[in-house]
């Protein structure tokens, strides 16, 4: 299988930091606040590989650092340490060594991001179609009819009525906004998609439909995805492999079935038990 992303020792620390930060935080101390300097160790030593067409789940409670890891990979925030290599079309990119312009180009054209809050992923001042057009225009498509066609096909794929494509996203329901966000993320056919709590806050039937859509995209386009969630149901349905995070550390990782059926770490056991 082709590797798409290789992350090694990714760390993110907020605050001035001291040499003891990493040694005095984590699950063993039940905190991610350094007792010496007060820095927050949001994520430390996160390593994983992602293969083509695979969905990797990152699970954990709020504040466990799962979103931070993804934000670093999507260049929303710079990491404090670690490396990540992205393999695309025969080239390898050291993500954190690229300059800002190269990072933005990669994020715009080769990555897709779907946030929990549609306000982060969509521009609410322009129409749903315009949001998709923006991604296409960033990658130098400058034919109006082609942009229009592509937007219609993306929206129909994500089951948004094409008749509503010229409406403002604020007129849409939460589920619809999420679908538009997914359509926007898919606009450039990215090989790598980040999904940050995409179904949180939606009602169950809409959740199921969105999850179906994500699986369909994975199967049709062989898109690799990283799914961040605290919802065991989402992990069970989507993820092939899963990382469990707590206090900024990966405490367990492996095949999703294995983790859910035979959790090793006490925290994961409690998590699985409480959900059943």
């Amino acid at each position: 299988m082709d590797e798409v992303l290789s992350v090694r020792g990714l760390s993110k620390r907020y605050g001035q930091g001291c040499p003891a930060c990493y040694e005095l935080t984590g699950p063993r101390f039940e905190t991610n606040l350094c007792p010496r300097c007060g820095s927050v160790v949001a994520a430390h030593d996160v390593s994983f590989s992602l293969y083509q067409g695979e969905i990797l789940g990152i699970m954990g409670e709020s504040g466990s650092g799962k979103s931070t890891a993804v934000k670093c990979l999507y260049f929303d925030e710079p990491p404090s340490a670690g490396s990540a290599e992205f393999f695309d079309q025969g080239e390898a990119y050291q993500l954190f060594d690229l300059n800002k312009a190269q990072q933005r180009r990669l994020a715009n054209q080769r990555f897709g991001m779907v946030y929990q809050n549609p306000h982060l992923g969509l521009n609410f001042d322009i129409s749903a179609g315009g949001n998709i057009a923006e991604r296409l225009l960033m990658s130098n498509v400058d034919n109006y009819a082609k942009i229009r066609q592509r937007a219609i096909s993306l929206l129909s794929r994500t089951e948004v009525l094409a008749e509503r494509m010229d409406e403002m996203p604020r007129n849409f329901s939460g589920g619809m906004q999420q679908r538009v966000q997914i359509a926007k993320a898919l606009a450039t056919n990215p090989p790598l998609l980040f999904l940050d709590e995409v179904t949180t806050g939606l009602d169950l039937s809409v959740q199921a439909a969105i999850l179906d859509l994500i699986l369909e995209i994975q199967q049709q386009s062989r898109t690799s995805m990283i799914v961040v969630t605290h919802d065991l149901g989402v992990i069970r349905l989507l993820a092939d492999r899963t990382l469990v995070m707590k206090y900024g550390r990966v405490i367990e990782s492996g095949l999703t079935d294995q983790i859910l059926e035979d959790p090793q770490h006490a925290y994961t056991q409690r998590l699985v038990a409480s959900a059943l």
Partner: protein
Amino acid sequence: MNEEHFGFLDEYAKKEVRRATLKAVAIPGYQVPYSSREMPMGRGFGTGGLQLTLALIGRGETLKVIDQGSDDSVNAVNLRSFIEMTCPGIHTTIRTEQADLIQSRHRIPEKPLREDQLLVLQVPYPDALVVVEASEDRRKLLHGEADYSRLLVKLYEDIVKFSEITISHRYPTRINGHYVIDPSPIPRWDVPKLHHSPALILLGAGREKKIYAVPPYTQAEPLAFEDVPFRVEDFSDEQGQRRSCVRCGCNSSFLDEYVDSATGEQVYRCSDSDWCNQQLEQQQGVDQAVEVANG
């Protein structure tokens, strides 16, 4: 010493403007920040263009000042008399072809400019991206990476809503394949004149403290889509006939619409008054034109 310094600005201020101008010419379309001086008139009344003119004009040179095509409207008259007052030894003209330097508000003369001429445009808002991005920091990044996708989205939304691009003036124009400029509030009609213009075109924004340039023979492409091209104003009437100037009969110039106060009728006249006069002269002979100009 009570005597006014030539060109009103002190030599340091002129040097600053010239230095910014050189940089602007060297990087076509890039907005060069400069220390815009207080002028004895409100910012927004052409102080950017005025500082350029004062820094560039010399004794014996001929100046033309126009405001929306006219040499006689308030802004043009005020600026002209200020420059005449502070730059003794310069000449002024209303003839486009006689001018060495033309300062203009919101129009480019109809008569094609020459290599030895220089056009200074007054600019209220220098940054084309200001309509889509409020932060100047982020606008600079977008300019640096030539990322104008958000402007194009604006055009896209226009076509969705109105089936065409509805920007009437300040049409975003890409200079030399990279920077997109706000070409000042010139009508669309004038935008093609920027492309490969033989004359150097300088744009000055006094309030926003920016100078930028379209150097001679430089590419200037208005933003558009491959299949929805840029077009200039259409002056056809209901029958599809090109409207002509009611005064000189010219049917190839940019027209202003007036309501005839006597009859209440809509009439059209050349926006460029010098062009209109010269058309009349050609048709009616010099004597009559002088009469018209005086009358």
